């Protein structure tokens, strides 16, 4: 199993300790394939991150993020193709614009905007995906459960 130092998953937590639940919306072409590559290459990442596939990050309706947080997610990742590489030309730019506004909105609602993260992961960046998932899990663990914000 390939596990690099910066990529190491925290040691298994005691079963009664609070575990975050993170939802990740990944575009079909770059990031979902990149996450699959992490799997094929057995690069470990945090099991609290759950992937939902969308065709493009341009599909990301801000409601999805709000709904995820409402339904009990403690953090949300949106991951798409790198700028300029979008399979649909520019959907990732649309996502970028929406996320900027959304983070501001989250702040107004008293939710730490760090709970929403937008990243670019290409189909060849399995390592980057694993790193992203682990970093987010670490971040959310330090922020604590969502209900602490509200």
């Amino acid at each position, binding site marked *: 199993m390939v596990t690099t130092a910066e990529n190491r*998953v925290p040691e298994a937590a005691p079963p009664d300790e609070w575990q975050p639940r993170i939802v990740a919306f990944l575009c079909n072409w770059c990031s979902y394939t990149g996450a699959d590559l992490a799997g094929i290459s057995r690069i470990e990442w945090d*099991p*609290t991150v759950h*992937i939902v596939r969308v*065709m493009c990050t*341009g599909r990301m309706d801000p409601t999805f993020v709000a709904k995820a947080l409402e339904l009990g997610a403690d953090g949300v990742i949106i991951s798409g193709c790198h700028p300029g590489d979008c399979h*649909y030309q520019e959907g990732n730019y649309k996502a970028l614009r929406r996320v900027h506004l959304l983070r501001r909105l989250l702040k107004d609602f008293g939710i730490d905007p760090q709970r929403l993260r937008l990243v670019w992961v290409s189909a*060849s960046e399995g390592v980057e995906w694993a790193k992203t998932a682990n970093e987010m899990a670490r971040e959310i663990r330090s922020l604590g459960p969502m209900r602490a914000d509200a």
Partner: protein
Amino acid sequence: MADNGSPRIGVYVCHCGFNIAATVDVAAVREVAEGRPDVVVARDYQFMCSNAGQDLIKQDIEELGVNRVVVAACSPLMHEPTFRGAAEAAGLNPYLVQIANIREQCAWVHHDRGPATTKATALVNGAVARVALHEPLKAMRANVTPATLVVGGGIAGLQAALDITTAGNEVYLVERRSTIGGKMARFDKTFPTLDCAACILTPKMVGADRQPNLHMMTLSEVESVEGFVGNFEVKVRQHARYVTADCTSCSDCVAVCPVSVPDPFNELLVGRTAIHKAFPQAIPSTYVIDRQGRSPCMEACPIHQNAAGYVSLVAAGRYAEAAKLIRRRNPLPFICGRVCYAACEEACSRSKVDEPIAIRGLKRFVMDWEREHEPDPQPDLPAQRRPEKVAVIGSGPSGLTCAFDLAQEGYGVTIFEKHDKLGGMLAVGLPGYRCPRPILERDLDYIRKLGVDMKTGQELGKTFSLDDLLSDAPGFGFDAVFLAIGAHRGLPLGIPGEDAEGVVSGVDYLRTINLGLPQTTGKRVAIVGGGNTALDAARTARREHAEVTVLYRRTRSEMPAEEDEFADAVAEGVRFDYLTAPIEVLVRDGRVSGLRCVRMELGEPDASGRPRPVVLPGSEHDRPFDTVIVSISQSPDRDWYGNGSPSAKPALAFTKWNTLDVDPQSLATPVAGVFAGGDVVLGPATVVESMGQGRRGAEAIHKFLSGMALEGFTSHMPPAQPGLGFEERPYLHSPTYSKMERLPRAEMPKRSVAERLTDYGEVDLGFTEEEAKREALRCLHCGACVECRSCEAACPPKAVDLEMQDEITTLEVGQILVATGYELFDSSQITQYGYGRYDNVVTGLEFERMLNSTGPTAGQVLLKNGKPPRAVGIVHCVGSRDEKYNVYCSRTCCMAALKFAHLVKERTEADVYEFYIDMRAFGKGYEEFYQRVLREGTTMIRGKVAEVVPALGQNGSDPHLLIRCEDTLIGKFREIPVDMVVLCSALEPPKDAADIARVFSLSRSPDGFFLERHPKLDPVGTTTDGVYVAGCSQGPKDIPDTVAQAQAAAARILTLISRGEVTIPPIRAVVNEALCGGCKTCIGLCPYRAIHFDSEAEVARVNEALCQGCGTCVAACPASAITGAGFTDAQILAELAGILAPVG
């Protein structure tokens, strides 16, 4: 049969052997699923993708009425089609299947069974909740255009193109270079069989040329790709070749091309001409002119003189041709060779190395040579005469150029000159020591030979009027007029006493001297001003034996006079008083007796950007002078206008500087048919600037008389900053300026100062032939072709077309193969190996060219000094298998290195050492070849080379190289003396691989090569349907592997062509027209312009064929009127709710 009504969900959890089951408790996942709403059956099974696994699903659909399926298994990118197929076989719509990815995104990336199982359960819950909301969808079908685009004409692209066309389909083969053949065409032998590369490649190249359905597009690049599998629209830019298909490959052009630039086909080891064919067997065999932008010298010249062209011809000793080339665009070559301010030299790229080429001096040399050898040069007369007549008023540079151009077009041209001498400022303004009169006469003679009528003593406003010219009066009746009356009026200083005797303007002073009219130059002359005219007046006054002082109100650095002029003036004893300005002319008895002056200091910059001179208080002082020549500026004379104003309205318009107000592009005045140019428009300008205006005027008059619109001019207006694009190097493959040898600029010999002051004889004496040739050889041939047009003249079938333009072609193709190849690692990055520093350290490809019979050494292995090497070191893994550069193995180098060893042994007596890390002889016959090379006596040293250093023999002579390395087999440090080092450099993706990837929507692997769809199961497909990859663009590989991959890609392409149609996933945007409010937000968001607004129904409509299903519009619709089929809001939210549902 399944009922698609209320959901009856079947859940199938795959063990995938141990792949999933080792980390995820599949039974627990199944148990939880059993308890979820709508789930009628849940099973776990060892291999769901097996037939037996699929049968489970089919059975449940048929027997239990399952109408929704969730498979928890590997990634949907892997087996989604499998399970959809199974459902479809059982009569269920395939889009009622949902995959939960519990292998790649769960079991394989987590190690702790508890959390992994929790997560798998959540993912299955999400899928169950989602699938309940799935609706049956129908995949669309589209026809496949059988034509195919193959990008890259190397062995990969070529092979695939041949396969596809042989099957009877059209292929467009797009190649960036001038020939197909790629890297393979540059190799000598191929391993391990030692076939000659050309022998096995060229038959394929010729075959491609013969294939009627293979459309070869060389010098071409794909600019954009739109559409989808089966239906792509591709825009291809075909760069101009400048040689038409009439070319017979006779090579007569090569014999006359004076250019030499480093030859990229031969790895820059030798030079080649600008017009060339990459190699003898190149296909297409049509020659090509390498033209990477226009030389800065030519670009900077207002008359677009082919400076680089004639300079190159001088270097070749072809003076008669040089003169002819100069005369082609220049009506005043003798004048320009002497007095042009030479914008070309300012722009010359050579100044980035040392100093600009002495272009003006070379032009003078050529024209002087012509005068000596060709007493009576004859212009080419126009093929036909035109009936229209044009009057040119003024015989200065702009009038003469206009007349010259129009006469060449066949118009009848008459010049009207006020003075008795022709030439305008050239005759009355230029002192004879700069431009001897016989020289001007020779230029005028040549223009006369074109049939231009030149009348002297004809003054506008006195002897004739503008109305007369355009009237039918005898001797007139012109159809158009070009006003080029110059700017001959010196501007006064505007100080008291200026009208005293002995005060004269610079232009008047020069005119009277030049026309031989009486003019008394005193003993003590003051010149006021610092321009070229001021200096001409000063130097002229010195020749009239006066003591001369130039008064200038700023300093030398602000003075507009040219450096040469200034240096000559100083040498001739002209004094310069800077920061001095006259405020009053002192007059005694009506005659000037001196100047009252003030001292200045420099203040803030003014509008011209020069520091404004400010008077120093109390600095007033008187200076004795008996002559004051005021030369601060000139303006056109407009006295003629009162007498000669045309009756036509609107009349001419003037600016506040008395210059004519004309259209800046066409030079048209408000009076129809009357154009104006030169100093009368520009104010005092240089000779060549005025000539440029004459040229534009001629073009405008030609358009006017031909009834064309006065737009789209092709005559040149130089940009403010010419020569851009040549910042680093003069030619794409040249060394940078900083690495070029410095060569001093030729200094033109001059007459001695003492001699100069005795008469008006010419000061500059001109170059000797030897000086001129040496100077011309300094030319860097910017952008390769210098537009000398020698090839044009030499080409028997007249195939050279320098006016050719790039063409953009739109192709409709069904599929695309990208085979764009590789580049070699830049070995100079590993500085310790000395590549680029030591002569005899070469790359593998350079060595390959050396071995080739058509290469620079005609197949001999030679050192730079021409001797054969005594020992050769071959270094493996240069830039590959190296953490610092590329971690991957380049796969071809071990075998290429062994081939080199064999060929060195075959062709020289040299010892050969191979320095390797691991020997990778993996292919068919490779190991056997390795054994053969070992038997031939090549020494193998296992160890990475540390460095290559220069060394000398024991007696201090005999320079050679030392290779230092650790021999890991004997565990010792070694130093091996060799004469030559061959570096087997890594194969890398091309520098622009990212751009190529973007055009074709390809992904790239971390090493930068294009990413195949699956590393094992789909090595030629990509993530974009209908786009395939082959050859080294996908990763380093040798020729057999490349050909195999190309043929695989061809087979894939042929499969789809023969199927004739593609299935397009029904993931599309759908508008619910009842909800659509017509806000049009979606329309601007769609990258495919698939949404349009139906203004009658006031709703948005989606064109299904164009929609690609990204869902951007779905997310943006404020009324939620757009649904993303397969990815509806409800489905995604249900999946979310399922994943986040409390696990219980």
